[in-house]
């Protein structure tokens, strides 16, 4: 009979892993040269990479930035031995146009400011770690720079004052530690308003900056929401929830469609404050792509959520409407919707009405994106276990509270990759507007190549546009990964 008993006499100390497992060598072993097949693949890939880069890099790094025409570039290539390369002069000469289209030169600060403010407005929505005060500092800096840029005695004084205020708040924010600040707040020190307040105002500020006109127009548009909320609140004691909601929506629509224009016009004759109006047909370049993209992205998510909920609804008519809408829009190419927007809609309009072309395109792109969004959100809803609905019901939460507090936060979290893919798709689809004659960057390439100097240029323009789109789409993609990490609550 063998002896099966064993007793350890001393415990083993901890040891470092062997050298082949750590450091660069360990990493390369594990990831690049892990077995013969793997090593061959690594070497082949490196060779391939080298060939590609050897072909592309000399093309990219051509000393043609300052050239004024394709012919001048060709002279450089000829002197250099005849190898073709990129002719970057076209970008230097035309990048402003690629950014702004034919937006009047004197007014270009407005889209730039709107773009800067977009970031200020987005930060509190997208990130929750940035402090309240730093967000206000950013806002003050952007506005201050705009004031200084605009110049004039008033502009410079106001601009410098804003920058000074920014420096003051920023200095205080930097010099008080987090704990001190928390103590200050606990002791009842007045805080700056929540920056989301500015984010909520941004949708009214940005169109005004872009299209100009009287300031009373955005004020009137914002008042529509106030009226709607007031109507809802004051009627709620007398009518049901649904009736109140319908009346609120109708009140807002009546105000916007019938009363806002006279309201704004009237006030403008009394207090004329406004910006030089800019026509929609002067919009172009990335400014146009970003405008359409941002609006469609921002509006498609809430509309998509409503459609997804409608599709799940027990109310037969609501459900049928939502399904019909989603299936119809998804079954039609975006380009046909854009053609409808550009030509057909005019037929249905009473003669003489001027329904802005960009607004029409915005509506179509938004509806298109919303239909896709609805399906993405529905996927998230379907992935939630039934127990979540039951737990919410059992606690006495009503439908809307359960949706807002329990269901949607989880469904949207599950759907983040799909939602962001849709966002990226929408942003890239904005290039389709060139087909109905809007001058987005792709539309502008034709105009640029019609120029004698640049006739025949292709790669440089499309390469530049592709790079710009890539930057935006890549940022969105990275943001979605960051968000998924931030919202992760299990310890996988």
């Amino acid at each position: 009979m063998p002896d099966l008993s064993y007793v350890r006499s001393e415990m083993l100390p901890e040891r470092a892993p062997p050298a082949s497992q750590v450091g660069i060598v360990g990493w390369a072993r594990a990831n690049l040269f892990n077995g013969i097949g793997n090593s061959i693949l690594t070497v082949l890939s490196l060779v391939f990479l080298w060939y590609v880069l050897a072909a592309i890099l000399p093309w990219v790094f051509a000393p043609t930035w300052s050239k004024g025409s394709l012919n001048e570039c060709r002279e450089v290539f000829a002197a250099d031995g005849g190898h073709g390369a990129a002719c970057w002069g076209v970008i230097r000469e035309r990048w402003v146009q690629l950014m702004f289209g034919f937006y009047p030169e004197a007014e270009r600060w407005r889209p730039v400011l709107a773009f800067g403010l977009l970031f200020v407005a987005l930060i509190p929505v997208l990130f929750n770690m940035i402090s309240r005060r730093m967000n206000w500092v950013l806002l003050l800096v952007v506005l201050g720079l705009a004031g200084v840029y605009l110049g004039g005695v008033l502009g410079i004084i106001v601009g410098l004052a804003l920058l000074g205020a920014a420096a003051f708040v920023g200095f205080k924010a930097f010099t008080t530690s987090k704990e001190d600040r928390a103590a200050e707040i606990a002791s009842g020190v007045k805080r700056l308003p929540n920056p989301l307040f500015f984010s909520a105002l941004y949708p009214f500020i940005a169109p005004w900056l872009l299209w100009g006109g009287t300031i009373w127009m955005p004020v009137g548009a914002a008042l529509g929401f106030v009226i709607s909320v007031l109507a809802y609140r004051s009627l709620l004691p007398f009518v049901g929830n649904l009736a109140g909601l319908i009346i609120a929506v109708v009140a807002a629509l009546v105000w916007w469609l019938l009363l806002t224009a006279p309201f704004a016009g009237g006030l403008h004759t009394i207090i004329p404050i406004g910006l030089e109006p800019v026509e929609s047909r002067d919009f172009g370049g990335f400014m146009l792509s970003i405008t359409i993209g941002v609006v469609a992205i921002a509006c498609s998510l809430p509309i998509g959520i409503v459609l997804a909920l409608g599709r799940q609804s027990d109310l037969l008519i609501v459900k049928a409407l939502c399904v019909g809408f989603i299936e119809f829009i998804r079954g039609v190419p975006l380009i046909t919707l854009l053609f409808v927007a550009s030509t057909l809609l005019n037929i249905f309009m009473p003669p003489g009405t001027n329904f802005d072309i960009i607004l029409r395109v915005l509506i179509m792109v938004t509806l298109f994106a919303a239909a896709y969004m609805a399906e993405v959100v529905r996927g998230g809803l379907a992935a939630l276990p039934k127990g979540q609905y039951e737990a919410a019901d059992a606690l006495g939460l009503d439908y809307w509270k359960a949706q807002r507090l329990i269901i949607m936060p989880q469904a949207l979290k599950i759907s983040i990759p799909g939602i962001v893919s849709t966002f990226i798709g929408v942003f890239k689809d904005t290039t389709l507007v060139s087909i109905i004659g809007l001058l987005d960057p792709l539309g502008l390439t034709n105009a640029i190549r019609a120029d004698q100097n640049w006739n025949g240029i292709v790669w440089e323009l499309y390469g530049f546009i592709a790079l710009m789109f890539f930057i935006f789409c890549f940022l969105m993609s990275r943001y979605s990964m960051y968000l998924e990490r931030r919202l992760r609550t299990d310890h996988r």
Partner: protein
Amino acid sequence: MSSITLETHVDRSKMAVSDHIAIEIRNMNKWYGAFHVLRDIDLTVYEGERIVIAGPSGSGKSTLIRCINRLEEHQEGQIIVDGTELTSDLKNVDKVRSEVGMVFQHFNLFPHLTILENCTLAPIWVRKTPRKEAEEIAMHFLEKVKIPEQAHKFPGMLSGGQQQRVAIARSLCMKPRIMLFDEPTSALDPEMIKEVLETMVELAEEGMTMLCVTHEMGFAKEVANRVIFMDAGQIVEQNEPNEFFNNPQNERTKLFLSQIL
């Protein structure tokens, strides 16, 4: 069938059954499509009762207690909870649901919220309790189920037994007058079953009205004042536990008991 022995001695001093009616079910019938799942259910539950519902799988136990807070709708008869009849009137439904706590087999905690937020959500949004007060109440009940130190973790980081105790605390935060349990320990390991059962015993000792679907016959013997046996959608037999286990009358009950004991 597992039967965990409860180590704590059950203190029956406060377990008094009053003659106030908590739940009254009269001649209730329910169908799933054409399938007659609950048949002529008559049941009166008095305040302070601890009722254990047993029966073979598919006999309609879950469906019955889910009808009591209208997670399922009944088609015939009446269900009156604490004086409020359950009809399609949503106001009544919400009223009943905020008075009746429910604990599920799979806990159904909200994974995107911390333990504390799970517990304060309903008091804040349904009862309109101020956040601070709601958090104090939540901590009180988390201490009661012996996991106050987990308050700021997420449900995914807790063991099954801890999650189920959080689920009980979450229901208690609404200060319910009646608690429903649907197999609260069936998804747990033996060690965890014990900690959850002990929590439930404490609750019973404080006089809570409880309806509990469970296979823990030890719990039924120690804590229940009445055991209901269901089969094929009907109440086949009910009695106080001693009689029920030692002297079953119906053949089906005898068969069932011979299989599980």
